[in-house]
């Protein structure tokens, strides 16, 4: 039996989270002394497909036709499940991305497989049990889930496994699957890219603002800092509720959960619901004028000061650092 990984692309290009998930799937395959097969759906250039070998894929199945150009989870799930059957794969790995969340459960049902979504570590396959650690209670805890079915689906949380280059070369082959008309009922009308900014769930650095920024007119400071650091911007719930920023930037228990290498919280006090969504960040920096703000209790580094006074100085410091680097 082998491991099959779905290599997700965005507009024909693989993202860092795809290389993470392929690296992770390679490690799962190594645990079982088996091979790793990747599947790509949509238009990805042949050279880019072969690059998946660098991260451990021995074979890349390329599924490319006009009908499957755009993501439709019903049809993509059919293709992945059929590929798993054809290749004899019993472990299927995907990213717990926005698209992966729609795919993994459908693949799971098709293959009668247990699904561990939000996975944050490699499976433990010692002994009889196959267990995976996943996020629970919005980052306030982790749960270890045992998958008891013969087939298993794992959806990996972005930024929870490092990209590993193993230097293999991948053999790329075309793969075709008969698709049902009924799999294409959802019709794509438009794609609206919000901006050229860094995508929040994938971001390695997130710069986030709260009510301490005092109004939407001050967000330029946060965006300038984010731009200098190559970071995504985010906000607390009161900020999105007030309409200062879009809901898509709201990080927390009822917003997006993030796990970047660096989370910089500016003018956010650190309500339990906000902390739940960011607690798996590797390093947390807090800037707040209230020295008793709960956020300082979970922060690694902090500055006690008014956001609007500290931010310009921090921006100047980053510029200086970049100029000297």
């Amino acid at each position, binding site marked *: 039996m082998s491991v099959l990984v779905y290599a997700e692309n965005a507009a024909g290009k693989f993202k860092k989270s795809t290389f993470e998930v392929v690296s992770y799937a390679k490690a799962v395959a190594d645990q079982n002394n088996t091979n790793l097969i990747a599947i790509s759906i949509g238009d990805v250039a042949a050279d880019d497909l072969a690059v998946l070998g660098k991260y451990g894929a021995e074979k890349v199945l390329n599924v490319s036709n006009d009908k499957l150009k755009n993501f439709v*989870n019903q049809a993509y799930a059919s293709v992945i499940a059929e590929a798993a059957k054809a290749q004899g794969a019993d472990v299927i790995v995907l990213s717990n991305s*926005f698209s992966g*969340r729609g795919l*993994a459960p459908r693949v*799971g049902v098709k293959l009668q497989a247990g699904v561990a979504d939000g996975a944050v570590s490699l499976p433990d396959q010692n002994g009889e049990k196959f267990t995976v650690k996943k996020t629970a209670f919005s980052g306030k805890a*982790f749960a*270890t889930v045992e998958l008891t079915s013969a087939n298993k689906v794992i959806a990996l949380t972005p930024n929870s496994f490092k990209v590993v280059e193993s230097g293999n070369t991948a053999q790329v082959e075309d793969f075709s699957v008969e698709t049902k008309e009924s799999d294409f009922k959802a019709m794509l009308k438009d794609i609206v890219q919000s901006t050229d900014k860094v995508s929040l769930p994938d971001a390695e650095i997130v710069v986030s603002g709260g009510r301490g920024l005092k109004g939407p007119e001050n967000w330029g400071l946060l965006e300038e800092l984010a731009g200098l650091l190559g970071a995504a911007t985010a906000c607390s719930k009161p900020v999105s509720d007030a309409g200062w920023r879009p809901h898509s930037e709201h990080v927390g228990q009822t917003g997006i959960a993030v796990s970047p290498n660096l989370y910089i919280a500016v003018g956010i006090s650190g309500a339990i619901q906000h902390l739940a969504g960011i607690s798996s960040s590797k390093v947390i920096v807090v800037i707040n004028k209230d020295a008793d703000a709960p956020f300082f209790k979970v922060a690694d580094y902090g500055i006690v000061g008014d956001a609007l006074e500290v931010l310009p*100085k921090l921006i100047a410091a980053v510029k200086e650092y970049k100029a000297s680097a």
Partner: protein
Amino acid sequence: MKILVCISNVPDTTTKITFTDNNTQFNTNGVQFIINPYDEIALARAIELTDGGKGTVTVINVGDAGTEPTIRKALAIGATDAVRINAKPHDAWFVAYQIAEYAKANAFNLILTGRESIDYNGSKVAAMLGELLDIPSVSIIKKLDAEDQQATVEREIEGGKEVLTIPFPFVAGCAEGVSEPKIPNMRGIMSARTKPLAVVEPVAVETFSEIISYETPAPRGQVKLVGADEPAQLIELLHTQARVI
């Protein structure tokens, strides 16, 4: 239009999470349970879409009798009727299977869930339902507009959104933006007491996954404070000590 809204009974968002029985059970002692916040958004949108006699909203929950206060709250908010599948929810597969069995027998135009539950952070039920019923599903939507035969939804993607049209019936997982949660008024609370709440026994289904233990994140060390006039020192620490820039 007949809409089915799937609701989970979850710990209040302010709950401090602890475990018992050697970290194998969630400690429910003293915990207040609420409608999953994303499911409240789904419920609010369902009520808006059927407002003025344009349809019905049935809420469904897989849970034991202890979840009935949560179900009654959904009725107070404005759902037409409710169904409780009388079983402890084992995992997403179990929940989706039970709801799919009910939905097969009751022909809904639209099935709404929250984008995920805030307890086990599963975002699986919407897509599993779609697969079990062989209808389209969209796991995370930010906007939902219904027309006669189809709906237009906005789906979140990394760095933007997709606009999709989908014919009924389909399943959608609702996120912030779809609607604003509604607060029950006194009339709603009074009428919820007499609205129908059917209790249905579960069907047998195989188990594919099981949570065997929990852990809480390791505590972080004490914060290292830097003076407000010395942000360069912070940058230095992030570069040399934390190695994140």
